[in-house]
């Protein structure tokens, strides 16, 4: 650890460090209209932004980009995140001028292309999932969840059923499930998993009463396992008047395999950024459409895209916006993540067709089971059965102080991105591995070989793991310093004044 008195070494200065008064990155034309009088008393005195030339900015961000690991650069088996390869054509289609430069409040007659695309995507997502209606508005998975939970609440309320306050959530769930429920004041009841990684039916039965809003279930769950009693689970929740929420985080295992709507789910969000190849962008933007069964369609957020005038022999249909009768309201301004989300997902689905979509899930599941088969002798897999698109192993060995974190960091030295670790919470030292369908056998073998070698290193040279990574530009971080000192901003007015 660095001595507190020595200044840290700066690998890449910030744009504020690089600033030099008088440099310009871009020029705009002089006004072609007379200058209007500015309201002096309302003007800001100083605008403390950096001053850089174009080349300074380009080189700076190129330098930064080199510090990132990415799917384009290597294998990224991050469990529950579906880090598949993102086709390049998507980057071109979403940047077509007709998409980039249309305003969300333009008259619908001038944006029939956008509306037709959104309508078609709603229809395709309905077909893929087995739901009766889909909204494209939610901005991300968690936003979709919040939408779904609001719909469930509104449904019960509309029936005068006001005593329902409990949301049932398995112990393997993503943190967003309880957080979404907490946002509207629901009481979260945790349901344990059984020995085979399914929902514990006995525990579920005990909680199923007339105070249940519903259940939020990820299936396949975060262990990568398809619940063996899924239809019984859903029946139990329905029989007590609850609604079944499907967390679509793991939909990449189900395309053309099974439709959540057919299984009896009532509401589900899609993650276009996982399943349908919208790139993750270093943490967003995502896109989290929500599908519902017919009796919940009236509660969807406004607006939906619909057909206002049916097609005739000469004219295509007129697409526009419709407001569902009992809508929960608006989830964000405008119409959702159209350009970055809907256009890319549309392109992806159009290029796959029904057979291609099924291939995605079949090969995602093949790759996961192949890695599981190669690794189960070396790493303990607590719920070991045929998995879906991912599986969870334990990153610990008897008699060794090596932890999952050390294994994760050591993988970086082999030029792999680590799996998700310490999640789900029900597996000790969890390593959650999701290979995705876009990796070839050579990559999977190299990754398995590295993990097997690391297991050996854990026994023979544990310090290699404790001190990993050693081959990357940056080593492990002092997270306590970050949280205690809370330097969240490199802009301070005094500093800037000195520099100018």
């Amino acid at each position, binding site marked *: 650890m660095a001595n507190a008195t020595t200044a840290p070494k700066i690998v890449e200065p910030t744009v504020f460090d690089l600033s030099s008064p008088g440099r310009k990155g871009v020029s705009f034309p002089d006004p072609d209209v007379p200058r209007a009088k500015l309201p002096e008393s309302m003007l800001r005195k100083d605008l403390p932004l950096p001053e850089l030339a174009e080349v300074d900015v380009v080189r700076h961000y190129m330098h930064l980009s080199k510090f990132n690991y990415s799917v384009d650069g290597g294998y990224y088996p991050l469990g529950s995140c579906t880090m598949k390869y993102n086709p390049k054509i998507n980057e071109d289609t979403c940047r077509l001028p007709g998409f980039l430069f249309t305003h969300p409040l333009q008259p619908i007659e001038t944006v029939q292309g956008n509306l037709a695309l959104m309508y078609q995507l709603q229809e395709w997502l309905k077909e893929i999932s087995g739901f009766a209606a889909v909204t494209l508005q939610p901005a991300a998975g968690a936003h979709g969840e919040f939408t779904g939970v609001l719909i469930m609440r509104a449904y019960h309320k509309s029936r005068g059923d006001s005593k329902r306050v409990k949301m049932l959530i398995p112990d393997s769930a993503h943190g967003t499930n309880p957080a979404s429920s907490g946002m509207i004041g629901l009481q979260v009841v945790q349901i344990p998993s059984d020995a085979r990684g399914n929902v514990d039916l006995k525990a579920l039965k005990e909680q199923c009463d007339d105070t249940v809003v519903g259940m939020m279930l990820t299936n396949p769950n975060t262990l990568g396992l398809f619940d063996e009693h899924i239809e019984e689970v859903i029946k139990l929740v329905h029989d007590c008047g609850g609604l079944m929420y499907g967390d679509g985080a793991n939909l990449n295992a189900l395309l053309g395999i099974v439709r959540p709507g057919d299984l009896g789910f009532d509401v589900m969000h899609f993650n276009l950024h996982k399943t349908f190849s919208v790139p993750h962008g270093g943490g967003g933007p995502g896109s989290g459409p929500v599908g519902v069964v017919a009796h919940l369609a009236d509660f969807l957020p406004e607006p939906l895209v619909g057909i206002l005038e049916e097609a005739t022999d000469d004219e295509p249909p007129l697409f526009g916006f419709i407001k569902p009768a009992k809508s929960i309201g608006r989830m964000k301004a405008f119409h959702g993540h159209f350009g970055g989300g809907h256009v890319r997902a549309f392109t992806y689905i159009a290029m796959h067709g029904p057979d291609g979509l099924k291939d995605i899930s079949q090969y995602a599941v093949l790759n996961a089971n192949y890695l599981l088969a190669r690794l189960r002798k070396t790493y303990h897999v607590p719920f070991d059965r045929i998995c879906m698109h991912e599986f969870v192993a334990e990153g610990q060995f008897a008699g060794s102080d090596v932890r999952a974190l050390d294994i994760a960091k050591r993988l970086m030295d082999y030029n792999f991105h680590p799996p998700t670790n310490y999640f789900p919470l029900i597996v000790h030292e969890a390593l959650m591995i999701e290979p995705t369908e876009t990796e070839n056998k050579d990559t999977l073998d190299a990754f398995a070989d590295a993990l097997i070698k690391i297991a050996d290193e854990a026994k023979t040279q544990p310090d290699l793991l404790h001190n990993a990574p050693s081959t990357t530009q940056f080593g492990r971080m002092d*997270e*306590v310093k970050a*949280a*205690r000192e809370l330097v969240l901003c490199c802009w301070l007015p005094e500093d800037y004044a000195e520099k100018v």
Partner: protein
Amino acid sequence: MNTPSNLKYTKSDEWFDPASGAMGITDYAQSQLSDIVFVEILVDEGDTVEVGKAIASVESVKASAEIYAAAAGKVTAVNKDLSQKPETLNSDPYGAAWMIKVEGGKTGEVMDAAAYEKYCAERTN
């Protein structure tokens, strides 16, 4: 691990001092949470707390926890310095890092120091 004998302890790792009416989190609790970076006292002077009611929220680098009242009573003092120096919870959990003081402090189910040490030892193994 430090377990002063004059204090009473809860299963959720809070301590209570019957002499002064003060309460806080135990040495075991702070070591489990590791580096504490934030604490918020959730009650004000003059409030009445009941056993098991959340009196504070604590966040470390990796975890968060709710802290529950070990004894019921009227709040007579709140440690206002604590939010400025949350690391005190790691360095001096029974002293400078007391959270609130109550009057009349009626405890619920509590353990003495010996029983609490045994309880912690069981969980460590």
